[in-house]
């Protein structure tokens, strides 16, 4: 059932694969941000209603997507850690959490900056905004719980449970704008009858979304590698002391 990915659960094999992917992730991050920012700041047109303010969307929407994506990664890792006890899954989940929390914060902050001129308020307690704030707290709770135990394994296990339970919030965030009336607009890109964003604005949006994804992969690989190396150093020191 988990034969193909057990292969990558071996930390040494992971390090080997990631050393190939990492430089590419770095290159893609810079290239996509370069092109994406050119498109979103200069080439794409202003919106017929919002004018230039629409450009906030090119940071806001990819951040929000990444916030949900990172949480989903974290939940899958937590599930496979609890069920199959893969230590690497635990590390990937743990190293994804702070990145996801930053994306969530970025989505909330840019949304607030857009809301003030467009809606007339920085913040409103509607279903979308509130569930997104809950997501930020789930990330922070996960990070805190991870560190709250002297025994690392117990901390990882408790955090994994929180991540799984909190995963229920992800579909709530996605569908909050359909289930309840909210101030936040409904989905524009991923909906049944196709996107309602003009292609001249969809291009920069997707470029930025890909840039964010490449950036995440780059950051994650660096973080996981340092964690694995730090583990090796600790074990080496312990052996030295024992000798």
């Amino acid at each position, binding site marked *: 059932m988990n034969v193909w990915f057990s292969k990558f659960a071996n930390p040494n094999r992971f390090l080997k694969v990631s050393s190939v992917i990492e430089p590419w992730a770095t290159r893609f991050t810079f290239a996509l941000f370069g092109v994406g920012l050119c498109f979103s700041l200069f080439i794409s*047109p*202003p*919106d*017929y*209603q*919002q004018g230039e*303010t*629409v450009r906030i*969307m090119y940071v806001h929407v990819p951040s929000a997507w990444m916030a949900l994506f990172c949480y989903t990664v974290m939940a899958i890792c937590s*599930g496979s850690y*609890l*069920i*199959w006890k893969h230590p690497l899954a635990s590390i990937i989940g743990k190293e994804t959490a702070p990145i996801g929390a930053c994306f969530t914060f970025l989505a909330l902050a840019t949304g607030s900056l857009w809301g003030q*001129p*467009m*809606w*007339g*308020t920085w913040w*409103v*307690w*509607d*279903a979308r905004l509130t569930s997104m704030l809950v997501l930020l707290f789930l990330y922070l709770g996960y990070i805190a719980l991870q560190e709250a135990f002297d025994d690392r394994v117990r901390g990882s296990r408790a955090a994994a449970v929180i991540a*799984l*339970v909190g*995963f*229920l919030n992800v579909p*709530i965030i996605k569908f909050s704008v359909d*289930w*309840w*009336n*909210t*101030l936040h*607009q*409904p*989905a*524009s890109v991923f*909906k049944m009858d196709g996107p*309602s*964003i*003009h292609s*001249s*604005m969809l291009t920069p949006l997707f470029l930025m979304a890909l840039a964010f994804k490449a950036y995440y992969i780059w950051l994650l690989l660096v973080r996981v590698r340092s964690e694995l190396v730090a583990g090796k150093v600790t074990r080496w020191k312990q052996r030295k002391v024992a000798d």
Partner: protein
Amino acid sequence: MKRKYKRLYFVAIGLVLLGLATGLILNALEENIVLFLSPSQVVETPPPSSKKFRLGGVVERGSIIKGENAQVEFRVSDGTTSILVIYKGILPDLFREKQGVVADGKMVDRIFQADEILAKHDENYMPPEVAETIKKMGQWKGQE
């Protein structure tokens, strides 16, 4: 049964049960989660006159009357019913005819006295030229 599978079923069943519980709770709390009431809801079951609530809908076409001292009057409609709203203050950028709006305030003599107006943005994004073309072709469905 192997312990791995035991854990797998435990996690899967646990998540399904938690999902059901969350669904029931959210369903029961629906009235508190919705941000605003529509004009029809307000007419059908009027909230107590002393209670503040949010009224949401679309600004009716041709209903905006701007008075002195930044006072503004307009009708909020949901297609079947509409309610007159009076407000004094600065309006958000997106406030315009046939555009979604959320007003915070209370009902006084069947008039909604708002002390905050929020504009709702819809899910359509396009450059001004495209909006012009669609309007010219007479296929415009959104607001103006």
